């Protein structure tokens, strides 16, 4: 019996170390990266492995709205124009130049020549017409960006003419600020676009599985050929796993970084930390169609009771900047306006003026999809307590959250707007009366008028003035209660060169080089 027992225990105890030993001796090299490099046939430079936090829902650039999809597609597709990495001003890409008619209604784009799609077909003006018509005619996810477009035509192979129903000074950012406006080859089999990408970008899609998507360098690329042989995107949801994968060389780059780890990472010599103020903003919105939040004094009272520094610190550590308007400081559209100081007495006075008796209960809807809203809500709840407002935090999954937002079934909610570039992106749909995304039901004719004029004003300085005034009105009316602009935070292996963290969080690996 003793013999049996000893053997049994040994078997149990040795199980894992045994496997460990065989696995370990079999090769120290990390195979994930080399695999792709080996099979991609890239003639120099191995593959670069990036860990992203979610799997793209699909790869059709005109249909997806998921950030994970765009992280991949950014490297595969091109747009007519593209935001500059430093200041996000629109630069030539597939269009080398453009002209606007004096009335601002006709834009003529001259296209680059010698550009080839990944399937070998040459890029022509007809491809642009096909791509834009597809978005407009099929009412795809981004069709609202073409709301003022009357027609798109190709007078010849090298020119595209966009005719507008009203002047649209931000047309360039509408068609270039993100890859949802990518150019596809005319006649491409649309049914396969969800899984097969055919672009003109520096990398072509090699293969995808439930755990990763691999791209290989496109040798026919019209721009500067990438140094690396390809990029593999691994989907790692758990931030600790993503960071461990980075420190153990399993991956070379990730943006899946928990804010509380940043201090440690700053001291880690094996990784580099990139942090740039992003063009995203986070805010709280109260229901302007529901008493007592329909009273501007009540909304202003809440605005005076909050301490944005404390909320931001709790939600983002030191990776965000407090802001009382939407547009971040680094943008040329920034407007310096911050009327609210934390002042509970003034807040109480405002509540009195509005004739609101306390205690008052405010449901605050947040979503587990964005944990920072949950954290922020807890701080907000504690800050509104002295005012006599009891915050009831309602944490929903994102589908339910959106559903309730759409139905107007809330007192207040918290969320962010991501990837804004032009001032219209920041204000128009959110604050115009009846605007597509004006869920808080804010309505002020003064704001409407300013936004309408800003949308069509061709002179940039004048346009900024109009949006500044609109911003002031929106902030004073507390249509949104703006909180902060977060940083884009990404980390990569020491020795990786040529990578730039961008304010719009577009992820481009075409200029990256691996350590030799």
């Amino acid at each position: 019996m003793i013999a049996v027992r000893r053997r049994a225990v040994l078997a149990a105890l040795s199980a894992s170390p045994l496997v460990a030993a065989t696995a370990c001796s079999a090769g120290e090299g990390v195979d994930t990266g080399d695999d792709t490099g080996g099979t991609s046939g890239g003639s120099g430079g191995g593959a670069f492995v990036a860990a992203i936090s979610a799997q793209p829902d699909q790869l059709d650039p005109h249909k997806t709205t998921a950030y994970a999809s765009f992280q991949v597609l950014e490297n595969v597709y091109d747009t007519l124009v593209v935001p500059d990495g430093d200041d996000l001003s629109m630069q030539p890409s597939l269009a080398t130049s453009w002209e606007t008619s004096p009335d601002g209604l006709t834009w003529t784009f001259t296209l680059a020549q010698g550009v080839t799609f990944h399937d070998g077909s040459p890029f022509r003006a007809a491809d642009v017409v096909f791509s834009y018509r597809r978005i407009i005619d099929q009412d795809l996810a981004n069709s609202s960006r073409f709301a003022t477009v009357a027609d798109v035509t190709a007078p010849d192979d090298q020119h595209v003419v966009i005719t507008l129903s009203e002047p649209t000074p931000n047309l360039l950012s509408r068609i270039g600020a993100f890859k949802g406006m990518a150019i596809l080859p005319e006649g491409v089999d649309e049914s396969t676009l969800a899984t097969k990408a055919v672009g003109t970008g520096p990398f072509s899609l090699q293969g995808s599985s439930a755990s990763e998507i691999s791209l290989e360098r496109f040798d026919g690329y019209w721009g500067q050929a990438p140094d690396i042989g390809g990029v593999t995107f691994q989907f790692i949801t758990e931030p600790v796993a993503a960071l461990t994968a980075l420190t153990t060389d399993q991956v070379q780059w990730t943006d899946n970084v928990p804010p509380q780890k940043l201090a440690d990472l700053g001291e880690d010599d094996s990784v580099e930390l990139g942090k740039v103020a992003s063009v995203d903003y986070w805010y709280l919105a109260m229901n302007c169609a529901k008493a007592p939040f329909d009273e501007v004094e009540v909304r202003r009272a809440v605005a005076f009771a909050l301490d944005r520094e404390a909320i931001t610190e709790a939600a983002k550590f030191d990776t965000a900047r407090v802001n009382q308007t939407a547009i971040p400081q680094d943008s040329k559209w920034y407007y310096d306006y911050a009327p609210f100081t934390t002042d509970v007495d003034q807040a109480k006075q405002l509540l009195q003026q509005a004739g609101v008796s306390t205690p008052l209960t405010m449901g605050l809807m947040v979503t587990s999809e964005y944990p920072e809203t949950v954290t922020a809500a807890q701080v907000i709840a504690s800050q509104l307590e002295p005012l006599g407002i009891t915050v009831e935090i309602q944490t929903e999954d994102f589908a339910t959250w959106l559903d309730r937002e759409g139905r107007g079934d809330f007192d207040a909610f918290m969320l962010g707007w991501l990837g804004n570039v032009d001032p219209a992106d920041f204000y128009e749909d959110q604050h115009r009366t009846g605007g597509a995304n004006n869920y808080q039901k804010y309505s002020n004719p003064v704001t409407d008028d300013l936004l309408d004029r800003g949308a069509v004003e061709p002179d940039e300085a004048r346009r900024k003035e109009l949006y500044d005034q609109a911003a002031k009105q929106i902030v004073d009316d507390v249509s949104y209660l703006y909180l902060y602009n977060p940083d884009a935070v990404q980390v990569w292996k020491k020795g990786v060169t040529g990578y730039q963290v961008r304010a719009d969080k577009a992820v481009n690996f075409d200029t990256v080089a691996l350590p030799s």
Partner: protein
Amino acid sequence: MTGVAVRRVLQAVVVLLGVSVLTFLLVHLVPGDPVRLALGTRFDQSTYDALRERAGLDQPVLTQFLSWIGHALTGDLGVSFRSGDPVTLLILERLPATVSLALASIVVALLIAVPLGTASALRPRSFLDGFGTVVSQIGISVPEFWMGIMLILVFAGTLGWFPASGYVPFSQDPLGWARSLVLPAVTTGLVSGSVLTRFTRSSVLEALSAEHVRTARAKGLGPRAVLNWHVLRNALLPLVTVTGVQLAYLLSGVVVVEIVFAWPGLGLLALQSVQARDYPVLQGAVLLFAVVFLVLNLVVDLLYSKLDPRIAS
């Protein structure tokens, strides 16, 4: 025996039908709108309507259900709202990862449970028994995600023995497959193993006190022979059932472990489908889980009657 099998299969079909109806209704009762979710916050009405129509969601629920069940009967589970891929393809794509993990976890669990449970039972209240109790108590109570993260930090981070996460298909690289399997399998295996250890211990204890064991001892059989022939054979019989249930549980996806280790299995697929309100995929996945449970139960029952002739008769 054949009669039993036929009857059980027929029962299974009825259960499956019930499961499909229930799943369909429950899935549609959950608040949240897949179209709204696909469009995100920047949503405009005409796009919304177009997408909704394309997904068939503008139809009455009954029409949707009849169309779905009609197609399902012919083996067509529809296409994913999210990716447009056929549901069957998505499930088949995830199956190898899930099966690898489930089988490896059961192996780990049995490697822990049978020796430790038997040893504990042979010397009740000994140091080893106490050790076994403590270990399995820890295994049952520690959250899987915490255990997973600790294993990642130690064995992937500090020691660098295994990859921190990810799945390598066997066909692509058998060794990489094995290495990627170890940490997630140990995480789930420890939990399943803890359950099975307790079970093995009590069932060996019970077998030890049986009349025939005393008889065997009395007629002078050696301890090892008694253990092998009279105790373990009887004690491990119930273990087959419990192992079958554990395996079914593992095969239907261990969601938490799959998230921690970025393991592209069915659990992760189901979770993603719930989050995205991807009805077709969710329905397909639940249907598959039901099939797995039913089939494994059936196999266990039939195996059981094979191992223990008393049950068959």
